[in-house]
């Protein structure tokens, strides 16, 4: 465990005071439900852009991408340069005119306008459930990490963090969440940038890191450049640490999962819907894409460095010195020495390091970034780094809770429980839903803590639900013949197809259960990611085909009813910008050009 100094606590307390202060300052500006849920559609593009990015910067992003960096190397950047940027450009250029222009207040409401009530209901229920459970998982991960690293009480950590998020959303609604997400964005950048600088300096810059990772790659049976090249070894799944070939990567991650998340998830789309004009809404994901493409350097590099760096001689946190599970041993023996500063994964019962089938120590990759932080940051900067971590947890949670309260109030409560009530009633319900969302998140965090596989299981269900969604939206926005019956049948069939494919396949080395194979075993994938990508592809194709077939067999809506909802029946948006270079299409070209350049540099 690491001792946290007074200066570190001072930085954290200052942060808590500011996020609460922003909520208090914005309290008076919330007068209507549109103010609370959609910020009155009055926020400039650069603010919604950074919030669009920050709402996605939850625990899974900062800790998970560091873990993947340690595990897979620079190939993790595919989650950004293929798995995010193209989709962000697509939603900005092509889909935002329908979301914003239709005046829908949420993504499920767009589905109602475009298709019918049952499609909206299905999407609203699944989305609302997923967001509160995601929020709970994020909370659980935060409490566990703070207990493990700093010895802080799990209960106190999650209650305090949840209380702060509750207070600022309750007071200022979406505006408060968005403003705090902008603060959190800068905190994460300024908290992690010195970590990358100090880490790279310690390993001899990029050449030194490449040389050390080449040794690690060879030791794991890969070519020397496997951890430092993103595309060069993607011709065959066995040649790269990710265990995926280029087709599965591009189709599964780059198309289905990426477009399914960035183009349909209300959590991020809600930020763009709060923009003050159609042009600002379209520029929101494009502005977000600029820092997003550079985030691999902030969140993946720490993991890569942690795997091979030698800890400084005078450090506040000796490697692998982490708080054990109650009753477990603490000492990590020399024989189970960690790689770099990444500690081994400990058996929760005995405290001994876990070993894989070949007898090698299993590393706890989730601790890669936090351990680098503890090893390289002195008192003071450690406070900033820990605050950045807390900010990432809070921004992820706030994103989920604001999306939940909107979908619950508009798409479920107003539609099915109490339609036609005064606006003040829905504003009050939004605040009640915020409290309920936080309470369910806390309960979900304890559920996750009680059951070993509950997190894996929930994330699996989310994947099943999310994967086919983009097919529904793509057909709905770009094919006027798509019908409500087609969309509903496609979504259900796609989700079932995902479950069946997952149930009939298994990643190599995994046992039957939550990892798959529960319906029999027809296929084995080299890695869990490969299985996930192919499950997504199967779900998307099934939803796409079933939606088309059922749509062709059912009666379409008259074309005049689809104006503003479908491409081809909607006027092209006119850009209200002062300069030509502010136009969304120009920004998109710049974003795509820079993304291609990054792929070439790290090919």
């Amino acid at each position, binding site marked *: 465990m690491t001792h946290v100094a007074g200066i570190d606590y001072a930085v954290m307390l*200052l942060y808590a005071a*500011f996020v609460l202060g922003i909520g208090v300052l914005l309290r008076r500006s919330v007068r209507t439900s549109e103010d609370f849920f959609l910020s009155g559609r009055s926020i400039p593009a650069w603010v919604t852009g950074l919030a669009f990015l920050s709402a996605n910067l939850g625990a899974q992003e900062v800790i998970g991408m560091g873990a993947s960096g340690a595990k897979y190397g620079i190939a993790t950047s595919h989650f950004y340069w293929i798995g995010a940027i193209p989709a962000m450009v697509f939603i900005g250029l092509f889909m935002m005119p329908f979301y914003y222009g239709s005046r829908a207040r949420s993504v499920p409401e767009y589905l109602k306008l475009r298709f019918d009530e049952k499609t909206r209901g299905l999407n609203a229920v699944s989305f609302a459930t997923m967001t509160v459970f995601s929020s709970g998982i994020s909370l659980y991960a935060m409490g566990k990490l703070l207990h493990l690293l700093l010895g802080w009480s799990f209960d106190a950590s999650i209650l305090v963090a949840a209380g702060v998020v509750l207070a600022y959303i309750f007071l200022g609604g979406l505006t408060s969440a968005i403003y705090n997400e902008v603060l959190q964005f*800068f905190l994460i950048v300024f908290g992690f940038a010195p970590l990358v600088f100090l880490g790279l300096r310690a390993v001899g810059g990029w050449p030194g890191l490449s040389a050390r990772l080449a040794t690690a790659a060879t030791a794991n049976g890969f070519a020397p450049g496997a951890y430092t090249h993103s595309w060069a070894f993607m011709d065959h799944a066995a040649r790269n640490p990710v265990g995926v070939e280029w087709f599965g990567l591009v189709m599964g991650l780059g198309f289905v999962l990426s477009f399914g998340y960035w183009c349909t998830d209300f959590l991020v789309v809600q930020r763009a819907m709060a923009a003050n004009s159609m042009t600002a809404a379209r520029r929101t994901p494009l502005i977000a894409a600029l820092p997003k493409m550079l985030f691999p350097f902030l969140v993946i590099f720490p993991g890569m460095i942690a795997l091979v760096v030698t800890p*400084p001689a005078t450090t*506040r946190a000796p490697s692998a010195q982490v708080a054990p599970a109650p009753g477990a041993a603490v000492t990590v023996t020399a024989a189970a020495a960690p790689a770099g500063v990444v500690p081994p994964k400990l058996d929760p019962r005995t405290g001994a390091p876990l070993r894989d089938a070949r007898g090698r120590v299993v590393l706890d990759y989730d601790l890669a970034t936090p351990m680098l932080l503890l090893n390289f940051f*002195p008192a003071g*900067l450690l406070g900033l780094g820990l605050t950045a971590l807390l900010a990432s947890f809070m921004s992820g949670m706030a994103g989920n809770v604001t999306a939940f309260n909107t979908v619950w109030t508009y798409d479920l409560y107003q539609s099915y429980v109490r339609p036609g009530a005064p606006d003040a009633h829905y504003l009050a319900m939004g605040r009640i839903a915020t409290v309920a969302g936080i309470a369910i998140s806390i309960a979900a965090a304890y559920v996750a803590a009680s059951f070993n596989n509950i997190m894996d299981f929930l994330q699996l269900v989310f994947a099943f639900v999310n994967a086919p969604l983009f097919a529904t939206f793509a057909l709905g926005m770009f094919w006027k013949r798509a019908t409500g019956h087609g969309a509903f049948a496609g979504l259900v069939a796609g989700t079932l197809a995902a479950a069946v494919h997952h149930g009939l396949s298994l990643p190599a080395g995994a046992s039957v259960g939550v990892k798959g194979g529960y319906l029999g075993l027809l296929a084995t994938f080299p890695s869990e990611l490969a299985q996930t990508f192919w499950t997504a592809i199967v779900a998307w194709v099934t939803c796409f085909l079933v939606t088309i077939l059922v749509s062709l067999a059912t009666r379409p809506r008259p074309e005049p009813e689809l104006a503003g909802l479908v491409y081809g029946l909607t006027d092209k948006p006119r850009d209200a910008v002062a300069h030509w270079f502010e136009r969304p299409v120009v920004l998109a070209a710049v974003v795509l050009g820079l993304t291609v350049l990054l792929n070439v540099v790290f090919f």
Partner: protein
Amino acid sequence: MTLDVRMPIGVFFVLVGGLLAIYGAVTLHDPGASPTGVPIDLVWGGVLLAFGVVMVLLALRARRRAQPPGAGNRLPVRGNR
């Protein structure tokens, strides 16, 4: 809407940057204060302080521009593009 987000962000980073820079200067020669040999608290505190000052100045400039002549000291609207 009466709050320019750059103002609280700027003030926050001025305070955190100042705190870090002062702490870094005071502990400059303490053993273990900089495990990597770089006076990072002092340097990074200065960077944060400078960033905070820039954000505050941008917010103040936007406030001045949003005020019509003779409008007194009203807070600006949020459309600070």
